[in-house]
């Protein structure tokens, strides 16, 4: 009880001491909180997106076969499918039809047009993602006009708006029948955009992909693992802007800690002397300084992390919107499921709280070991 009571006394004094310069210390906590808030928000956001990607893309096509001509993606002859079917281990091959449509009418949004294997509605209709519907202010039974490859206009009726709960995969989708797609873009029946390959044994992805590449040298297969790994790597800190944000935070931090470490003012030194003179030991004085650093950093850390959590998972990371939206016209409402990485939070704790606390003690070392005698003679 003795030890705890003593710590509480030291904490009492530390708090009194901090409250003496209310404005300065409040500003310190505020800035520090922000410096924690930013990387914490980024951490929560990117981690949640990655986890969602891993879960949601788990059933993505096993192998995709693209055709590359002069460095660009070109249409794949449907006959390639038959040739791939001959490879041992291949279950099925299907031609995919999909592409992009730039809609100047509604702000210059880009839609991803897809022909699903089973399109349940008639020709002349489409099913759209919630982003498309929202952006064009339309809903079921409304019409959307598309400009075809030959300049003619095609009017398509919206039969269904996909639920916004799947926005992260479907916001910009426009689903239509094969007939409408081919008519819109002028793609002959002999061609498809690319192929998807179903494989019997997942362990064979790489082998079969290699065989496809050998069999059809102008193609490039992509396997499901690579798709998933793409999203593991998205928002990688090494990517330009994230590095800048994090570096900015680290720099601000270092400046803070350096300011602390730069030394104590004459008044602070005198006070430490008085403490020594009235009977505090060097260890007591250092303990006080430790508490000083801890009070500020703990407050800022906890507040920053909590605010970041609220921001990302209750506020849809709205502060990031201008950054993430970039040039996009269609932008999904990012309501992520909270997947939180405790180790990441722990790391953030260690790189923010510990250095700052240490930086508060170090310059005090000298002053704390001062001979109380000198206070008598001041």
């Amino acid at each position: 009880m003795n030890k705890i009571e003593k710590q509480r006394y030291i904490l009492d004094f530390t708090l009194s001491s901090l409250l003496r310069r209310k404005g300065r210390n409040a500003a310190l906590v505020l800035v520090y909180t922000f410096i924690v808030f930013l990387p914490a928000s980024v951490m929560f956001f990117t981690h949640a997106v990655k986890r969602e990607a891993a879960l949601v893309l788990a059933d993505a096509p096993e192998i995709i076969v693209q055709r590359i001509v002069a460095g660009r993606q070109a249409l794949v002859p449907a006959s390639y499918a038959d040739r791939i079917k001959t490879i041992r281990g291949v279950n099925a091959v299907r031609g995919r039809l999909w592409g992009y449509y730039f809609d100047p009418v509604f702000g210059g949004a880009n839609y991803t047009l897809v022909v699903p294997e089973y399109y349940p509605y008639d020709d002349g209709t489409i099913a759209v993602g919630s982003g498309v519907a929202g952006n064009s202010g339309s809903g079921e039974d409304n019409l959307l006009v598309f400009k075809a490859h030959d300049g003619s206009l095609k009017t398509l009726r919206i039969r269904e708006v996909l639920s916004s709960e799947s926005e992260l995969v479907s916001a910009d989708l426009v689903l239509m029948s094969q007939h409408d797609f081919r008519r819109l873009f002028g793609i002959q029946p002999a061609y498809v955009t690319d192929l998807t390959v179903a494989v019997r044994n997942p362990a064979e992805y790489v082998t079969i992909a290699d065989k496809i590449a050998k069999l059809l040298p102008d193609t490039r297969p992509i396997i499901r693992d690579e798709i998933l790994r793409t999203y593991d790597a998205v928002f990688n800190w090494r990517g330009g802007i994230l590095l800048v944000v994090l570096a900015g935070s680290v720099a601000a931090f270092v400046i803070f800690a350096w300011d602390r470490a730069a030394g104590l003012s004459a008044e602070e030194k005198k006070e430490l002397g008085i403490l020594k003179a009235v009977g505090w030991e060097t260890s007591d004085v250092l303990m006080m300084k430790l508490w000083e650093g801890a009070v500020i950093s703990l407050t800022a850390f906890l507040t920053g992390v909590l605010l970041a959590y609220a921001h990302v998972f209750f506020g849809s990371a709205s502060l990031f919107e201008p950054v993430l939206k970039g040039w996009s016209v269609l932008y999904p409402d990012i309501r992520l499921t909270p997947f939180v990485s405790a180790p990441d939070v722990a790391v953030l704790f260690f790189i923010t709280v510990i250095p700052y606390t240490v930086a508060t003690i170090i310059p005090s070392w000298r002053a704390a070991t001062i001979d109380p005698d000198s206070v008598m003679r001041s």
Partner: protein
Amino acid sequence: MIEINNIRKVYNAGVHNEYVALDGVSCSLEAGKVTVFKGPSGSGKTTLLSVLGCMARPTSGRIVLSGRDITSLPERFRTDVRRRTFGFIFQQFNLIKGITALENVMLPAYPFGERRASLEKRALLLFELFSITRRAREKAELLSGGEIQRAAIARALINDPKAIIADEPTAHLDSSLSRDFMELVGRLKQEGKTAIIASHDPIVYESGVVDRVISMRDGRIE
């Protein structure tokens, strides 16, 4: 109570600005008495008080406290002895600004980890003793000269030390407050406390409360 033998205190020994503050001082101070060291500034009074109160280590010589030789105690033990035995009143009083008078008075007791309720009670008793209770929860810088003086004395007494050591306690006080101070010293003496005061103020060393006056000059006792 305290006996010092041939104490020398040299600052910056061996360097060009070497300064001999105390040059072979010996004396024996009785418990329960009020002793004043008088002399001009530079005579070594402050240094002597420092050494007597175990705040500074002598360069050479011995200190015996209540029959125990404490000259070569390691710092930790010396600090412990010091805080249990002595209460200090500094020339500038040196209360910490920005915290209340009450907190200032309780400060020296913090490292002992005594329960807050009882510590606060003890402190408030001292405030009452010196008639400054109503100022207890004011910030230290708002106190008047006399109130600061009393708070400083209260602070020196919080750990119930055997002796009070005061360095030029009346230097910043007018005559009336100076006399008040000596009266308070008299009360402490009645309670059996020892007082060791350094002063060149006649109100102090000519006071009836004082039992013994020792003159100092140039680091030696005259």
